[in-house]
């Protein structure tokens, strides 16, 4: 026999999830690398996958931007989502601005209007996350109020701190993938304390009480919802937000308000 309690727990969470309007910074197309159980999400199934998990839309990336080349990833991503009806925007892969680099890249020719953020892969693409190498790209991003995403495994914490300090007007979203960020919180939290322009993405920001702690220490506006779909289960970060010991207004910011604001402020 099903007890009434579980029905009530489910219903309460479904209603709150709907009210919070989750908007996802971590949706991925293309063949996942390093996640053997993950299955590539066909673009045609994207809308249904988001809807099933209660996600209203978000920012989409393509694995090829990391595993093949920035240009190929950007090209295939733009083509896959052309005319997409959902509330969908793109994260393009960027490289240090270098005369002669072929597009499509941020800083080389016009961007599709759906591009609202860029991501760098310093380790995968072999360049340092240093002012003298990516400074001109950072200036380009600041001029467009476009946020920079970076997976924490793609750099080291001191480089991130120097870059965030050198470009305080640049919003940097530190992503909690592709391995647990748990083991790095003794670096992440001081970085967030020192650099107000650094934010953290939630898909694997899963240590006990991290959401509550980060909201108390740094404010709810510093947390960005991301699922890492289809490698990761969106219900995990959704659950951490739904049941966080914070106000509903703070939950709404984390679930989507913060990311929607970043997206809306981008100048094309």
């Amino acid at each position, binding site marked *: 026999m099903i007890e009434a309690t579980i029905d009530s727990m489910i219903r309460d969470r479904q209603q709150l999830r709907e009210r919070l309007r989750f908007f996802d910074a971590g949706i991925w197309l293309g063949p996942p690398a390093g996640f*053997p*159980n993950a299955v590539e999400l066909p673009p045609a199934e994207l809308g249904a996958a988001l809807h099933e998990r209660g996600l209203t839309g978000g920012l989409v990336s393509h694995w090829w931007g990391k595993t093949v080349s920035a240009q190929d990833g950007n090209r295939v991503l733009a083509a896959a989502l052309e005319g997409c009806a959902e509330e969908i925007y793109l994260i393009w892969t960027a490289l240090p601005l270098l005369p002669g680099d072929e597009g499509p890249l941020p800083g080389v020719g016009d961007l599709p209007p759906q591009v609202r953020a860029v991501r760098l892969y310093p380790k995968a693409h072999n360049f340092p996350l240093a002012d003298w190498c990516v400074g001109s790209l950072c200036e380009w991003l600041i001029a467009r109020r476009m946020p920079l995403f970076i997976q924490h495994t793609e750099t080291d914490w001191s480089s991130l701190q120097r870059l965030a300090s050198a470009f305080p007007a640049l919003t940097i979203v530190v992503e909690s993938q592709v391995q647990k960020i748990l*083991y790095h919180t*003794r670096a992440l939290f001081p970085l967030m304390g020192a650099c107000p322009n650094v934010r953290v993405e939630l898909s694997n920001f899963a*240590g006990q009480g991290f959401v509550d702690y980060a909201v108390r220490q740094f404010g709810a506006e510093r947390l960005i919802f991301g699922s890492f779909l289809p490698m*990761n*289960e969106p*219900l995990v970060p959704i659950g951490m937000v739904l049941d*966080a010991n914070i106000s509903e207004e703070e939950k709404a910011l984390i679930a989507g308000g913060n990311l929607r604001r970043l997206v809306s402020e981008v100048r094309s």
Partner: protein
Amino acid sequence: MKIIDAHLHIGQPGVFFAPQSTPELLLAGMDRLGFSAAICTDHLSLGRGCAGFLPGLREVFERSGGRIFYFGVYHPGFSDACLQAMAEAIDWPGFAGIKIHPSFHKIPADDPSYEPVWRFAAEHGLPMMTHSWSVSDYNPVQQLSVPARFEKYVKNYPVVRFVLGHVGGRGREQADAIRMARDYPNVYVDIAGDVYCYRLIEKLAAVIPDKVLFGSDYPWLDLRANFSRILLAEIDVEIKQRMLCDNAQAVYRLDI
């Protein structure tokens, strides 16, 4: 309905910042979410096994009002001391079973040095829970705990109710954990840890609905991460209840 978190820890883990790790904060979290009981391993016991640490865990159980149960950790390198300590604790309030952790102890799960604890569990009707994981490029000791390494003991000791913690991890070997839970009546899995694979709950519900236990891995991971994952999964509500409550009781038979 009595929700059981069947896999968590208490105490400071050391290797990362843990703003919430005490039994008191655990209880507060359980109260907020409506959990009735939890089964913990303490980080101290993981080092050299449970000898010397079970009285402290019994105290935690009693202070918690009978809600935070505990495992006795068996370390093959300290076999006699661990088995003696567990023999004394078998009838203590809150003693829920035995935990092994081949990766942490750096002794493969199919090593003969685990024979005494399997025999002990069989003789005393105790359940066992283990860390299990997949082969990992960046954490090579995990290959000591891949599910298939436990299979010979599972076959030899069919009376021991055996839980593969973390469903065998996020990699290819997860399929072995699911296969073993499907094929052996005495094998179960828990979903503790960051085994956050997309649609895993739906997959487990379809294949082994009576063999899946809810667990969080607190304080390594948040009590809330896996909880709503089950509540909001696209599966029958009756299976959610089994995962959150009934399946853990089938294994651990807690007095709650």
